[in-house]
């Protein structure tokens, strides 16, 4: 099978949807964060696929590298915050961490 740009875009769209689903439906904070990682990586696939198949400059590849670094920073900070939540609430369920009223 010949792999084209469309295949990559479909793969990335599926990954994006899974990510969004995880953020919306999962109640475990770690799972939510993993969903966000999926969204970031789906964008990365887009960037690289467009750069490769579109005959564009290296902008896309460069963007992907920056995003990988940024995702790592964000994961570090987010996990630290989740750890702190666990120490305070003894749970990482985002529904139970809801003391601030609406």
């Amino acid at each position, binding site marked *: 099978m010949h792999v084209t740009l469309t295949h990559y875009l479909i793969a990335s769209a599926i990954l994006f949807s899974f990510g969004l689903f995880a953020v919306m439906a999962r109640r475990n904070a770690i799972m939510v964060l993993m969903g966000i990682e999926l969204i970031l990586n789906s964008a990365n696939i887009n*960037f690289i696929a467009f750069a490769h198949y579109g005959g*564009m400059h290296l902008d896309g590849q460069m963007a992907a590298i920056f995003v990988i670094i940024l995702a790592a920073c964000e994961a570090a*900070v987010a996990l630290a915050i989740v750890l702190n939540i666990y120490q305070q609430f003894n749970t990482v369920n985002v529904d139970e961490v809801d003391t601030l009223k609406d």
Partner: protein
Amino acid sequence: MLQSIIQSLQYIKPEAALTGTFLCAILADLIFKKKEITAGVVIAGILVTAVYVFQQIGESTSVFSRMLAVDPFAVFFKFLILLSALIIVFFSLFSNEVNNNKRRIGEYYSLLVAMAIGMFFMVGASNLLMMYLSLELTSISSYLLAGITKEARDSAEASLKYVIYGALSSGLMLYGISIVYGLTGVLDIYSVNSVLAQGGTNTITLLIAGTLIVAGFGYKISAVPFHFWTPDVYEGAPVSITAFLSVASKAAGFAMLMRFSKVVFIDSSVISLPAGMWATIHGVVWTDILIILSVITMTLGNLVAIWQDNVKRLLAYSSIAHAGYMLLGLVVLGNDGFAATMIYFVMYLFMNLGAFYVVMLVANKTGSEDIETYKGLGSRAPLLSVSMAIFLISLTGLPPTAGFVGKLYIFAALINAKLIWLAIIGVINSVISLYYYVRIFRNMFLRDAEGEQAPLTFHFAHTFLLLVLVVPTLALGLYFGPLVEFAQYSVAMFGVK
């Protein structure tokens, strides 16, 4: 290439000075372990940065292969960010909440500076990747700052909600950027504009990408429906951080959104319009998106604020509503509207920081942010109550305060652009907002204190900072000529006419 990078370096002196401040704040904390010294280093750094920003007045250029623009527009917002950062440092020095965690004071001040660095890049970013990176730099520092008082459950919860909503919104924005990259093949916003102007782009795809990018901006300026984090984070975070998020972070988000709207979707070949007005590229419904965003933002913000009993939460919804008013200025798509939003921001800086400062002083003394605490405050702390009343009147937008002038320019710009119905919605919203501001007012002056009756006394420095915020709130309502001129001059962005 190397030559151009070296030449570009001289244009990021303010950012470099802030980075230096960031490092010095960490060092000062390690060596001296005294909050006064760390804060002093930060204040000195902010003043040095202000000098460098001052030198940039009149510049209009683009540096680092068109990654960053250094233009009057960016300079205006840099001043705004520095001024609010300076005031916030003094807030923090007086805040019990912050001073109670002695071990993390150094981190607190250095992260505050890191946030300012991110905002400096946000206001100048002229490349989609740069926009995303600077947005994240600001966000990551603010996630940590929202949870800096780790022992408090509220603060921990605030930081969790902030990081989830923030990371999701910026992820959506990144996906939108990747689609725009696929459509146009470039990330530089000027090139994106010229590719879009040639036509032939799939409008549906562009609409989807545009909507995803709006999610990122909307989260930063807390516009509905990307506002869910705002009330919880504003309530849970320390007051000084809440105040900083509500002014500086919002200003940076607006600056980025304004540059994006003015550069990306404007068709510069349309010449039939009056001077200072712009048209969007054919087939792009950017104005409609902004109108919908602004109307639901101010209406929902004001309606929900009515039911709040925590003053910090009430001010959070009020700040959502204010984002709606400021978006009205963007709807106009003209120099008038943009200048109006920028004028509004200066007014908003003093009145909103002022209101949060009063909340902080009351919380310092009573330990509560509940609206019931404000009962009888008029007799217990007269100067504080009168100042709060002035801030609230200004937030409502009644003369003779700064808030009135801000709203006046926005509504005038709308009426000039024949969007009278939008101006009417804005005025109706201001009337609704009067209702909940008056609740605080009534508790302060018309209700008797329950329980504790003793007058509240404040340190001289605390009162002085209060006056520093009250005086401009009143003065800018009466004398605003130079400010208006400066804002109208600062509308100019690099690369667009």
